[in-house]
């Protein structure tokens, strides 16, 4: 196959589009191995804009690992914005890599990162732009294999028609095994009929799911079974887990883009996994157990990364960074490093809600002390026990007090609406908390800004809430209106909310089965790309497609599932026992919380015991300030300090 760059054909198109810098590559740190018959070519695609996709750490890690191998090479691509897509289609130029601007169809694998369900139509669009048949069944040996990884693959079924193979779990090790299998296929000359054979071979790699190797049986609207077609194809696909992050200090050369992107800073992953057990949180369930990176390695990655990139901000990433055992030492190390001259700021993207955390934040944000974000998620202590986010009112108020007293002027609070057992008193509790936080702020600053950001809850596979019927658009809208009315005259609080219609579309894709593939294809054909962007989103396309295929939104989204029901992702294993999830769902309905198992006895969710791996946590005791009920007095959870009760006349509570 001729390896050629499309750049001379792309360059004139870039003069006609917005933000052309997102299509040129040239990032510092970008380097790819040369193409050649001895290397399996991977095109790693983030199916959203460059600004959103470039910082993705998972993609950057695999990009480096593959380019370090002598049997592989990897380049990157991102979804072209609609203006460039129109130019590409008019000029008959296919999807291209940003590294060397080679056509996507020249690669052996086109591998998508799936971080959110609303990008599914972009996946289909990118396959089409690559010049590859969108349905896997229509592809021949001349076409690349289409792969997908990332959190959304824990329910791969909605994309099963379009994706040849899914990778479940951590990708660091399995990409090597896939490369070897695909390398043999490539060396054999990809003969007619060999595509099925290579896919069957790939289905035997642990962590790889090949949907075409499975039969799906239905019983009316219900799913009866998903079973392998061949005896050597596993009935259940187990996730991959990297046991020791210390062996994977990636990215070593984080990409520095030439144009502005989200999270435009050095990012260092301090641990993977989370056992706080928040019942709504898919990430916390599917990434267990907790695996910390050694503090010394974190320090090295931070100081070398800052030196190499020239960034003035570093983010320590994880699902709850204040829980990192080495947090204080790492923070002190960065601040006191004379090389940083006091100009480097540190950010913790996921703050725990307590004063200890704010203390750390104040230590590190000497400069640019603008806003802090907390996620209490629920408005009342009762609902926070249901969702297992065991934050007491005191914790939140102390954190907020601490933030405003130390110079912050803006506090952002994240909440969920539409969680199980939610009553209006819980919804209105969001307003009460936000109002109290603004009141605390007024003691320290003239015009404190408290933003309450409310997202509609979408139940996710492999969580205790996977059986729960999602709230309707009407119900979510009613709850948002309750809050709007209640906060209308509160000047210190700004209410933001997520469009309930987008929440519905996410719900269709989140727990859909293989039949939802036709819906995704229809929405794409009707022009529905970039569904996370409100200006491009239209729920009408989704409703019309569901109706056209005789599928009920109520059945797929709003219905409570039963214990004995076959779920579309039952053949995919995150290591969690289904009866653990069911028991935890029942505990939620009893308003009973579960502590963090990092520091308390194991309650056998199934992951550590099933995979023979363990938490890698340096500290034997919970962090100062406690964590998720450990080291905390939960009997006082819902008590609101007297000083914070509403005092102004006319304030409804």
């Amino acid at each position: 196959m001729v390896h050629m760059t499309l750049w001379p054909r792309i360059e004139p198109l870039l003069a006609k589009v917005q933000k052309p810098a997102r299509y040129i590559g040239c990032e510092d740190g970008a380097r790819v191995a040369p193409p050649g018959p001895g290397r399996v070519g991977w095109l790693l695609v983030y199916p959203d804009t460059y600004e959103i996709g470039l910082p993705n750490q998972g993609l950057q890690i695999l990009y480096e690992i593959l380019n370090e191998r002598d049997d592989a090479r990897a380049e990157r691509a991102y979804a072209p914005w609609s203006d460039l897509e129109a130019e590409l289609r008019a000029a008959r130029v296919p999807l291209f890599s940003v590294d060397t601007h080679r056509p996507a169809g020249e690669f052996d694998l086109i591998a998508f990162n799936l971080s959110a369900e609303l990008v599914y139509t972009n996946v289909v669009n990118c396959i089409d732009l690559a010049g590859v048949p969108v349905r896997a069944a229509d592809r021949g040996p001349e076409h690349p294999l289409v792969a997908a990884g990332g959190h959304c693959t824990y329910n791969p079924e909605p994309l099963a028609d379009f994706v040849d193979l899914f990778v479940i779990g951590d990708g660091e090790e399995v990409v090597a095994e896939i490369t070897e299998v695909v390398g043999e296929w490539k060396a054999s000359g990809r003969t007619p009929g060999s595509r099925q054979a290579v896919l069957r071979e790939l289905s035997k790699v642990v962590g790889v799911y090949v949907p075409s190797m499975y039969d799906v049986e239905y019983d009316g609207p219900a799913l009866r079974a998903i079973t392998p077609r061949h005896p050597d194809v596993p009935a259940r696909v187990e996730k991959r887990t990297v046991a020791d992050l210390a062996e994977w200090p990636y990215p070593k050369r984080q990409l520095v883009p030439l144009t502005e992107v989200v999270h435009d800073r050095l990012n260092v992953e301090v641990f993977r996994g989370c056992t706080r057990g928040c019942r709504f949180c898919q990430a916390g369930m599917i990434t267990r157990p907790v695996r910390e990176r050694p503090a010394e390695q974190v320090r090295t990655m931070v100081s070398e990364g800052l030196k190499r990139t020239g960034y003035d901000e570093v983010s320590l990433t994880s699902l709850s960074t204040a829980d990192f055992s080495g947090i204080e030492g790492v923070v002190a190390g960065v601040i006191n490093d004379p090389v940083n001259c006091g100009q480097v700021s540190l950010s913790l993207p996921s703050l725990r809600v307590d004063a200890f955390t704010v203390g750390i934040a104040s230590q590190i944000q000497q400069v640019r002390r603008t806003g802090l974000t907390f996620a209490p998620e629920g408005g009342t202590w009762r609902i926070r026990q249901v969702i297992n986010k065991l934050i007491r009112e005191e914790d939140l108020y102390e954190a907020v007090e601490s933030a405003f007293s130390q110079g912050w002027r803006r506090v952002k609070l994240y909440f969920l609406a539409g969680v199980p057992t939610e009553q209006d008193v819980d919804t209105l509790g969001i307003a009460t908390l936000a109002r109290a936080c603004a009141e605390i702020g007024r003691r320290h600053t003239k015009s404190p800004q408290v933003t309450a950001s409310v997202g509609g809850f979408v139940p996710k596979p492999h969580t205790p809430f996977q059986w729960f019927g999602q709230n309707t658009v009407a119900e979510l809208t009613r709850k948002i209106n309750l809050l709007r009315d209640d906060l209308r005259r509160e000047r210190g609080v700004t209410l933001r909310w997520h469009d309930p219609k987008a929440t519905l579309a996410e719900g269709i894709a989140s727990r859909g089965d293989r039949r939802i593939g036709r819906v995704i294809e229809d929405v794409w054909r009707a022009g529905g790309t970039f569904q996370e962007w409100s200006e491009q989103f239209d729920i009408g396309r989704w409703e019309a497609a569901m109706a056209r295929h005789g599928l009920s939104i109520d059945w797929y989204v709003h219905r409570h599932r039963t214990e004995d029901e076959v779920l579309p992702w039952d053949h995919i294993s995150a290591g969690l026992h289904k009866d653990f999830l069911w028991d935890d769902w029942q505990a939620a309905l009893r308003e009973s919380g579960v502590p963090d198992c990092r520091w308390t006895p194991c309650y056998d969710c199934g992951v550590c015991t099933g995979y023979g791996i363990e938490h890698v946590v340096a500290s034997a005791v919970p962090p100062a300030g406690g964590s998720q009920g450990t080291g905390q007095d939960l009997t006082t959870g819902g008590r609101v300090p007297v000083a914070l009760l509403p005092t102004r006349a006319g304030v409804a509570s």
Partner: protein
Amino acid sequence: MKVRFRFAKQGKVRFTSHRDVARMWERAFRRVQLPVSYSAGFSPRPKVSFGLALPTGAESVAEYLDVDLTEAVVIDGLAATLTAAMPVGVDVLAAGELEAGSGSLQQEVTSCTWSIDVGGLDLGQARARAAGVVAAAELVVTRERKGSPVTDDIRPAILSLAEPQPGSSGIRIDCELATQPRGLRPSELVEALGGGLLTAFRHAQWIERDGARWEPIPLPATDATHEKDATHDRSGPGLDRAHRDTRTPATGGAVDHPAVDHPAATVGSASFS
């Protein structure tokens, strides 16, 4: 101490914006640990001031910026050190200390010389229209400004306009356009000629003072001779691979990301006079 840098922006990197380039400089300063002064206050920013923004998509061998340093540094070799810290396609051509009290680039620069590639016109049309513009006493255009139409005469801003020539893509027009009192962008000139802008290349920025023209880098600059010589010697920044390889040594069979695919011909034609 205040230092002025002259740099080139060529190849794929031409699609970055003025703001993107500013951020590249900030990162490069930190990477080479140049003692840049920061503003005081809530959100400290490095004290850097850029000259006239280069339109996104245009190339140049005559971009400038001034930076305030907290302490004196050795100018010798600084341009090369910074080039190594910049993306492929951005090359620092010269550095020089600014005398105290020097005016800002925005205030001082009076004109720029450009080569512009124009599409949508044949050579005969382009020559006739250019001749018409040169002969005209005024050239009134209407543009949108803050939502309402503004009419003004751009003829005084066209200081020279050479006869259009066949170019590597479209028609090549060399010209000098004023930057004040009313600055004229290449795209506006092309629009007035009835064509479409393909690319623009800035060769020089000029300061006219007391009847003489100067380039903004104070002479003698320590590590650049004259910009044209510098351009020729380098045979185009995008082709400067040897230097790049020393910065990021290839390991494990990997090679650096591709050098700028810009045709050397364009760089060669940069010797505008």
